[in-house]
């Protein structure tokens, strides 16, 4: 009966009963997106790591108050985002300059993929520069929704805003991103 992976809800129930291994499985399952979300929120890799670890511990401490029928991931991300924002605030730092391209990214400049999902170098650099110039809040909502591909509902929970607010905020943030890109191009 243990052949299939357990659902989050089953792991949470086990963790509530004191099964630390079950919680470890939850951490394993969500740690990558949690670290990346924290990174978007605080802009520093080591702080993101610490914030995520602390977020997982706080989430464990709060499991008894977690609604059993709610999705775990966005609830966790909300705690992680709070932790990461507090660390950023304590450091008095903006986040945007931390975004950069991977050194070992695919050789996309020479051979774009057939699906067209790999950005050409110029377009990529232009977009990245514009993202860096956005305000922290705009970059975070865009990052959660389109870079991490959270759903609107997950983004809303992670950022602690109503779902309708995510829609309007995304719309405004995309508008500002477009204006910023136009500014970059016109330079």
């Amino acid at each position, binding site marked *: 009966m243990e052949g299939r992976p357990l659902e989050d809800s089953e792991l949470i129930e086990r963790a509530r009963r004191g099964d630390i291994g079950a919680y470890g499985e939850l*951490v394993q399952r969500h*740690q990558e997106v949690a670290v990346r979300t924290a990174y978007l929120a605080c802009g520093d890799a080591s702080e993101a790591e610490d914030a*995520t*670890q602390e977020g997982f511990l706080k989430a464990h401490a709060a499991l008894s108050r977690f609604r059993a029928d709610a999705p775990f991931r966005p609830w966790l991300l909300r705690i992680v985002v709070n932790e990461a924002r507090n660390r950023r605030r304590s450091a008095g730092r903006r986040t945007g300059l931390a975004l950069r391209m991977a050194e070992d990214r695919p050789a996309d400049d020479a051979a774009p993929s057939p699906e067209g999902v790999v950005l050409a170098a110029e377009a990529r650099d232009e977009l990245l520069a514009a993202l860096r110039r956005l305000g922290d809040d705009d970059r975070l909502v865009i990052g959660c929704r389109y870079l991490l591909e959270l759903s609107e509902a997950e983004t809303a929970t992670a950022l*602690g805003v109503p779902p309708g607010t995510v829609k309007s905020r995304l719309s405004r943030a995309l508008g500002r991103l477009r204006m910023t890109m*136009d500014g970059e191009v016109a330079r």
Partner: protein
Amino acid sequence: MTGRRPLDDAELIERLGALSGQLAWPATPDLAGRVTAALESGAAARAAGTIDRGRSGRTGVLGRLRELAGGGLGGRRVARRSLVIAVIALLAIVVAAAAIGLGVPGIRIELRPLASPTPTATASAPGPSSSLSDAEPTPRGTPPDSELGPKVSLDRARSGAGFGLLLPGGAGLGDPTEVHLTGNAPFTRVALLYPDHTTLTEFLGAIQPDAFQKVVGPGTTVEPVRVGASDGYWITGAPHDLLLMYLDPDGLSRFRQVTVTGNVLIWEVGAVTLRFETPLAREAALAVATSLR
């Protein structure tokens, strides 16, 4: 390049999706191993005051105290007892040091000169006058309504808080003149306003870290107290700054710094962290606090 057609939203979103795979995301460490190790050793470590929650160990002894105050699933009662002893032992150190934090979950207290506000704090906007202190000008510690969240009925606050709202018993304070509720459960905060510039704020501190941050100068006394079965702090004396996190109408976290000249009692009851701002003297404030039901 000028004259190029701007990208529409769909094109922007497609490019963002493509960019995601090319960004230098931080490597994902083995947090599962660290977290389970911390949980497995948590109770014993908390009791011994040797908990190690950080990758770099940068939290230090006082950071550990904050963790003790934060507690966890196991060893919480033991941790609180240890906290009282440790706080008393360390207060002398705190007086001599700068920017040291102690805390109840959701509240960080830092001792440092008021002339060095937290860098991200915004300027305070003085509110109505207050008589919290005889010696100082009296900017009001309670933020404007927009930062407390919308005014609601007491019943609405009870149903929307997501935790058991506590109210003073007896005839001490009477009924709140205003009740405010902000945030969505479990990230809610309820503020109960009473006459004489008295405010009781309640929230789930363990998952709203640093919802309040107090910065107190050398003329301020921070005294560990017992509030019923709970540990807490009684803050009085010179004005202290309060860095308040609140949600703006768009739901974004914002921070505002206000200077509080009155007395503040902070403590926790179960998972709920409480902040009681009052002109009352310590014993009277403690009496109100222990009457909460």
